[in-house]
């Protein structure tokens, strides 16, 4: 019994820790970034300055006192010592200045300033090169691409603002915005995330703890199938089930008693897992579990999940004839139902077909109900369909089990 509570506890802690990084937004992480600056101009300085100021990148532009170049940078990446490197090409500033001058001249012409900045023909194929350690994941590459792109765009924009500002000063046109004002124009419309529910102050995010604690708690609860089915089969094989059926008590009430007992065990398991999420996860440096605005609804959800899990175990223990059949089926069924039910990976990021398939998994119903409460601040009405599904699933399987046990002695098998 202790193992039944201890093992899921260990499981959720390990899973939350293991999955912490993949669940974090890239803006919460900090990466070492090798930079080889062959440009040494305003653009490269702006990019490096921006990267250094960011919380995401730790810029490394020299190793052992030697400034990085293309060759050293590649070597370091190939050795696997670093994951990302960028090379700013020679003449990048000159090229961007030229492009900005062209844009500024166009604007100047359109608004009738009459001033022009010097320009030349543009060059093709001028890139800031980015290198990755070959083992880097594609999603990570995309994230880094997007992050770097932001700083390059910012540096280019900054230079364009300066060009436009110079044109304004040259024409002595006081109605033109100065450089600071123009910067405001570019940065004036930002993005700020707010909670969809007006009643709460904090934005609820899925994170490792918010996903893993309920997900693996449900997985652990459903794993009761294995000991329960094993217990039922052992009772039959060892003869104690025969003794119980000879005693003048209703078999249905005995079966009901068993269901109630295991439902209570699973519910206690759920409560313990959530307590770990609330108070133990922060000890491991993870965020604490948040329960939303209606945490009391989690109790009926836990009871319904426990009932469904217990009934499933009773069903497996009743329809199979031996432990050799029941136990592998039970455990593999739970793993499959958990995989398609979004326990391993949130359903929302699965392909559409898998998202539809997820709806057949009782583990999905349980997780969706919990997510309604802890992520969306839902109320009882929001989870009632999931509770009804879990209860129906449990009742149907339990009735089949009772019928199967009743009919067992009526046939030769």
């Amino acid at each position, binding site marked *: 019994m202790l193992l039944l509570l201890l093992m899921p506890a260990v499981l959720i802690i390990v899973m939350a820790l293991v999955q912490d990084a993949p669940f974090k937004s890239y803006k919460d992480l900090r990466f070492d970034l090798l930079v080889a600056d062959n440009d040494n101009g305003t653009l490269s300085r702006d990019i490096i300055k921006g990267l250094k100021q960011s919380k995401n990148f730790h810029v490394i532009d020299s190793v052992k006192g030697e400034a990085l170049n293309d060759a050293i940078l590649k070597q370091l990446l190939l050795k696997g010592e670093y994951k990302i490197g960028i090379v700013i090409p020679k003449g990048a500033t000159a090229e961007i200045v030229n492009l900005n001058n062209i844009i500024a001249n166009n604007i100047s012409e359109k608004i009738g300033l009459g001033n022009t900045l010097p320009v030349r023909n543009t060059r093709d194929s001028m890139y800031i090169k980015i290198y990755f350690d070959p083992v880097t994941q594609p999603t990570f590459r995309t994230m880094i691409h997007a992050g770097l792109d932001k700083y390059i765009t910012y540096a280019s924009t900054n230079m364009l603002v300066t060009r436009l500002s110079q044109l304004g000063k040259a024409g002595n046109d006081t109605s033109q915005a100065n450089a600071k004002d123009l910067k405001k124009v570019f940065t004036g419309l930002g993005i700020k995330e707010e909670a969809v529910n007006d009643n709460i102050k904090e934005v609820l995010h899925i994170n490792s703890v918010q996903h893993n604690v309920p997900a693996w708690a449900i997985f652990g609860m459903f794993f009761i199938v294995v000991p329960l089915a094993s217990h039922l089969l052992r009772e039959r094989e*060892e*003869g*104690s089930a*025969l*003794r*119980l*059926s*000879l*005693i*003048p*008590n*209703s078999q249905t009430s005995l079966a009901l008693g068993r269901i109630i007992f295991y439902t209570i065990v699973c519910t206690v398991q759920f409560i313990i897992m959530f307590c770990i999420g609330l108070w133990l996860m922060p000890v491991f440096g993870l965020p604490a579990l948040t329960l939303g605005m209606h945490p009391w609804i989690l109790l009926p959800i836990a009871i319904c999940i426990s009932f469904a899990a217990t009934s499933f175990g009773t069903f497996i223990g009743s329809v199979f004839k031996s432990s050799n059949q029941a136990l592998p089926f039970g455990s593999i069924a739970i793993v499959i139902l958990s995989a398609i039910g979004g326990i391993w990976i949130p359903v929302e990021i699965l392909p559409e077909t898998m998202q539809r398939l997820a709806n057949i998994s009782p583990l999905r119903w349980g997780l969706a109900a919990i997510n309604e409460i802890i992520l969306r601040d839902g109320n009882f009405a929001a989870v009632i369909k999931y509770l009804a599904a879990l209860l129906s699933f449990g009742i149907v399987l339990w009735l089949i089990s009772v019928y199967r046990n009743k009919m067992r*002695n*009526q*046939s*030769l*098998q």
Partner: protein
Amino acid sequence: MLYAIEINNLYKQYKGALAPAVNGLSLKVKKNQVVGLLGPNGAGKTTSINIMCGLIMPDEGNVQLLGKDAIKETQEVRKVIGVVPQQIALFPHLTARENLNYIGSMYGLEKKVMRERINNYLQEFGLEKHGDKRIIHYSGGMKRRANIIASLLHDPELLILDEPTAGVDIHSRAMIIEFIIKYKQQGKTILYTSHLLEEAQKVCDEVVIIDEGKYIAGGETKELIKETNNCHSLEEVFLHYTGKVLRD
């Protein structure tokens, strides 16, 4: 109520079976008797017992145990009968005492009465020193004896034993036989099946021989031996009625 057991035209065919396990069986067992229900393998002895204790529903017929309908009033009947199945029907990971306490409480026995009965029976069956030992660590004979005690705690009027001495050592068998005789002396009725006919001849006041689910012969043990042509023992009577063809 003269009879402890009255079976009329009992019929049961299992799903998937080619022939009925019990085929129109009728018999009557008087109270305060030890009656042997004898028959070769597959004769229908265990099926008949399972119907009597409500584990199996018959297709036809009726069974009265101690004046109660065993099919319709199963729960009531179970309160007054004790069934010792062939299989050891105990919780192997519990001690004998834990098993007996649990089973006694399921019968609703008062704690004091239950404790007293458990101690008495453990002593009577030679298990008093092993009461706190887990059943899984018992020998075959000890398990059989504990299995019998579990069926006696509620002091049943009718005790049904399905091959209680099968595969047990000589001492355990002697103890079980002694107990059956003693239990009858308390005014109880005992229905007992066995393949050990010498033992049955010694213990049973009456015997009923069944084969292929049907009643073949029956009566007082001594009379039946006497009345059957050239037979001097129950074994000879049994072979006379059931033949010498091997049964599976």
